[in-house]
């Protein structure tokens, strides 16, 4: 188990493994996104209540879901880097933050654009939307905190602690539509029972959700690999790698 753990956390090994994974993630995410978006925009019938504005669901829900899952990944990486001082975990924390921030931004913006024709307003200060705004500020805070330190080890520790403390916001976002009265509609996809969304509308949504998850993985690997090359630039394997190409 420990041998496995150490092998996994070795930047060199991770660089090689991610290199073989990268093209797969790219192809799956692009294919799922293109098919899912075309299907959702052109072939699914409009919602009987919301009309065509509901088509924003195919980007809004995946962006929000991956923004939250990405935060959990980042907080977990923060915990691993705090407890075991694993460099790779610190790199994942640093690289995941800007992707998560961008996806949270997308969830907020597409939500606002969807809200205007549906609720008659761009923005309401209700529990769901406000807690996602807090998520956005957490991401921005982690990026800013990381940049604020000259000592990168201290930067990693401080950001990891902020990421862990902020993780309390994730269950709040998730259950906000049930705990408080809200304009925001509750979840349409259920893992335990029957989903309240029609299968015809659900299928492209599952595709775009898959596409966004793979996209996150793709961009995260690209960023982490850059970070590895930068931090390991004085090692022999990076030297051999650079000179061999």
């Amino acid at each position, binding site marked *: 188990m420990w041998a496995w753990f150490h092998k996994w956390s070795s930047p060199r090994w991770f660089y090689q493994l991610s290199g073989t994974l990268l093209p797969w993630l790219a192809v799956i995410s692009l294919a799922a*996104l293109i098919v899912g*978006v075309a299907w959702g*925009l*052109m*072939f*699914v*019938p*409009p919602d009987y209540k919301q*009309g*065509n*504005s509901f*088509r*924003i669901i195919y*980007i*809004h829900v995946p*962006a929000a879901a991956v923004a939250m899952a990405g935060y959990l990944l980042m907080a977990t990486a923060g915990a691993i880097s705090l407890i075991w001082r694993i460099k790779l975990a610190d790199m994942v924390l640093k690289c995941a933050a800007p*992707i998560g921030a*961008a996806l949270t*931004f*997308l969830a907020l*913006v*597409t939500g606002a*654009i*969807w809200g*205007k*024709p549906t609720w008659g307003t761009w923005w309401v200060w209700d529990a769901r939307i406000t807690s996602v705004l807090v998520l956005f500020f957490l991401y921005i805070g982690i990026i800013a905190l990381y940049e604020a330190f000259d000592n990168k080890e201290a930067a990693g520790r401080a950001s990891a602690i902020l990421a862990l403390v902020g993780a309390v916001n994730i269950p709040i976002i998730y259950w906000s539509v049930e705990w408080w009265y809200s304009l925001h509609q509750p979840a349409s996809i259920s893992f335990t029972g029957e989903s309240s969304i029609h299968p015809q509308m659900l299928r492209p949504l599952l595709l775009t959700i898959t596409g966004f998850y793979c*996209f996150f993985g*793709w*961009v995260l690997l*690209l*960023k982490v*690999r*850059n970070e590895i*090359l*930068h931090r390991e*630039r*004085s090692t022999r394997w*990076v*030297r051999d790698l*650079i*000179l061999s*190409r």
Partner: protein
Amino acid sequence: MYFETVAELLAMDGHGPYVWAAYGITFATLVWLVAQPLVAKRRQLRELRGFLRRTEGA
């Protein structure tokens, strides 16, 4: 296809501007997300080559 013509697809019964704006912003953001590390990598490889040449004194 649900829509009969391209004009109908663009108009989406009046919801077109909202839907297309949301998709446009998303598309631009995703392109930026993936382009940024790719550009950074090219720059980094160039700098690393220079760095290695200097440190090796070659």
